[in-house]
């Protein structure tokens, strides 16, 4: 009798270990983020060059001709010709909503990428672009636009590849009988500085102001003109990166205990660190490919989430998956509608929001920097 109760008790606590980490702060953060995403999405679908009332926009969003038609979804997600739809539905579903989806994907990717890099480097001020990723992507963007303009169609792919290439280079530079967080960050600075100079140098060879604008849009991050094609491009990689990030939360938590403890617990620390960085770079690359280099989201979101749910990565990663899209969708509302009809690159808005947030944190918190 007592035996059964004790088994029940202990299996209860195994269950508790599986789901007990979901707490009130995480649930409220996720709900609040969802509200922001939905509200931002509603604003995005309602306003624009073709104006409609909020009621009309909502009816278009819930148009059964789209929602319950697998054929339409197939076209959205795999490409092809859309069947006939009403004009409003077409504008909402084919132009305005995909931009919201892309913003959400980019936000989620950047947030988990930043969260992972902050654990790998054990530095709260690390961002998805810390290990040379942004400078590598930026350099390849400019090279493509200026020198190899024939390859412009592959720009998203090349930008992502540039980021990954720079990351590998950073790792090679940092490696000396293994790496350390400090060496990695320093190598990131080295590669970043050189690539940044090359980038700036390339601007002098541009004659066409249109190319300059395009280059700036890519290097500051912009969602202008994104549609289902960008969703199709980013979605598979995002799913992989997010799945791996969720599955690796325990590894990330052990990394936070410090290198020595992680190693004495039997973690093959170099392998794990490289693999996790790889996941973070994949997520960053997926967002670069569709939106360019959007700054601050990957830095601010994990920080903000950590302040709410604590540093446990099980909660942190989940929180980032909700808060990242919220910030990105909200920022894109500003980028698209603030100076209507001129659209700003969304990276300009995230920078304008992110800077003051850090100022606020710096004033409020005593020791900022340690995870």
């Amino acid at each position, binding site marked *: 009798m007592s035996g059964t109760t004790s088994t029940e008790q*202990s*299996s209860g*606590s*195994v269950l508790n*270990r*599986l789901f007990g980490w979901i707490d009130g702060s995480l649930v409220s953060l996720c709900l609040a983020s969802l509200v922001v995403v939905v509200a931002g999405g509603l604003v995005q679908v309602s306003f624009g060059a073709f104006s409609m009332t909020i009621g009309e926009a909502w009816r278009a969003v819930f148009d059964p001709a789209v929602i319950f038609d697998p054929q339409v979804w197939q076209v959205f997600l795999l490409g092809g010709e859309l069947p006939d739809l009403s004009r409003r539905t077409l504008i909402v579903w084919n132009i305005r909503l995909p931009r919201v989806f892309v913003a959400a994907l980019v936000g989620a990717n950047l947030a988990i990428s930043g969260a992972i890099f902050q654990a790998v480097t054990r530095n709260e001020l690390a961002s998805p672009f810390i290990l040379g990723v942004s400078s590598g992507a930026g350099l390849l963007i400019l090279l493509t636009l200026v020198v190899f303009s024939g390859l412009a169609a592959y720009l998203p792919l090349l930008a992502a590849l540039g980021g990954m290439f720079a990351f590998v280079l950073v790792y090679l530079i940092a490696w000396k*009988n293994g790496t350390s967080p400090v060496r990695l960050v320093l190598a990131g600075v080295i590669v970043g500085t050189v690539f940044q100079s090359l980038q700036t140098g390339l601007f002098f060879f541009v004659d066409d102001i249109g190319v300059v604008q395009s280059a700036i849009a890519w290097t500051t991050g912009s969602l202008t003109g994104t549609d289902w094609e960008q969703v199709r491009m980013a979605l598979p990689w995002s799913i992989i990166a997010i799945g791996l990030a969720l*599955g*690796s939360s*325990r*590894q990330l*938590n*052990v990394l*936070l*205990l*410090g290198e*020595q*403890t992680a*190693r*004495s*617990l*039997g*973690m*093959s620390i170099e392998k794990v660190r490289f693999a996790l960085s790889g996941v973070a770079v994949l997520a960053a690359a997926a967002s670069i490919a569709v939106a360019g280099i959007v700054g601050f989201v990957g830095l601010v979101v994990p920080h903000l989430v950590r302040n709410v749910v*604590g*540093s*446990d990565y099980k909660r942190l990663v989940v929180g980032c998956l909700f808060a990242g899209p919220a910030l990105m969708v909200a920022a894109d509302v500003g980028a698209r509608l603030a100076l209507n009809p001129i659209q700003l690159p969304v990276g300009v808005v995230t920078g304008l929001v992110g800077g003051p947030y850090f100022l606020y944190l710096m004033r409020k918190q005593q020791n900022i920097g340690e*995870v």
Partner: protein
Amino acid sequence: MSEQQSGDSQQMVQHGETDATADGRASVENGSTRESALTGDALELSYPTSEEPVVECDRIDIPRGEITALVGPNGSGKSTLLKSLAKQLSPDTGNVYLDGKSITEYDDKAFARELGLLSQQHDSPTSLTVEDLVYHGRYPHRSFFEQVNEDDHEAVERAIDLAGVEHIRDKQIGNLSGGQSQLAWIAMVLAQDTDVLLLDEPTTYLDLHHQLRVLETVRQLNEERGVTVAVVLHDIAQAARFADYLVAMQDGELYDWGPPREVVTEELLADVFRVEAAVNYTPDPEIVPKHSL
């Protein structure tokens, strides 16, 4: 004492016999050398920043099922030696054997299932709870994506119980006193469920109560589960009371080793610690400095 020992290959047996007669603990098997759980052979250890080797040690044995204390002044290489035994620092030359097998042949996780190490310094996120920390001790027993199972749960409960941190299990590490957090970390290594446990100065900076709690936990683990322990201790009198076996180090070399009674002598205190002191056994060892430095 030490002249007699140097170059005497049988000294371990002699000590073992004295040990057995002294307090009745049978630590010698049929007159043969007592079995080592962990052996360091011809070790030369250095850090990337140092030119000279920090530790040179022909042979060190950590006897199975006993508590071995490493003592010596600051900078004598105790922690360095412990790190190399725990596979945290690879030696320039020489090798370390765990259960007769070179530690380089162990896979990282397999090694961590056999040998646990509690480092001198450890930091953790301040919002981590004690229970979550202890669960991290199960890391080597779980595969990459594996969830907790019944074994993990039992090992964690046992560790929490043994370290006596039940009452603070839901507290955050950042809100604990130094002594409490040290016990939480000890619970983490206990949850690792290893046969060999290495502890680097687990009692330094703790008040007397927590020092004794830590040592008691280790002693209990050794007696009840037969865990082999090697521990770096600062207080030589404490080490002499607590350990079955002492290893004294000086300037990166082993000065003497054996049961405390034979190692802790006035000569050792003068040579190694540069302290003129009287050593009395009443029956526990007492060290009384003869005059101020």
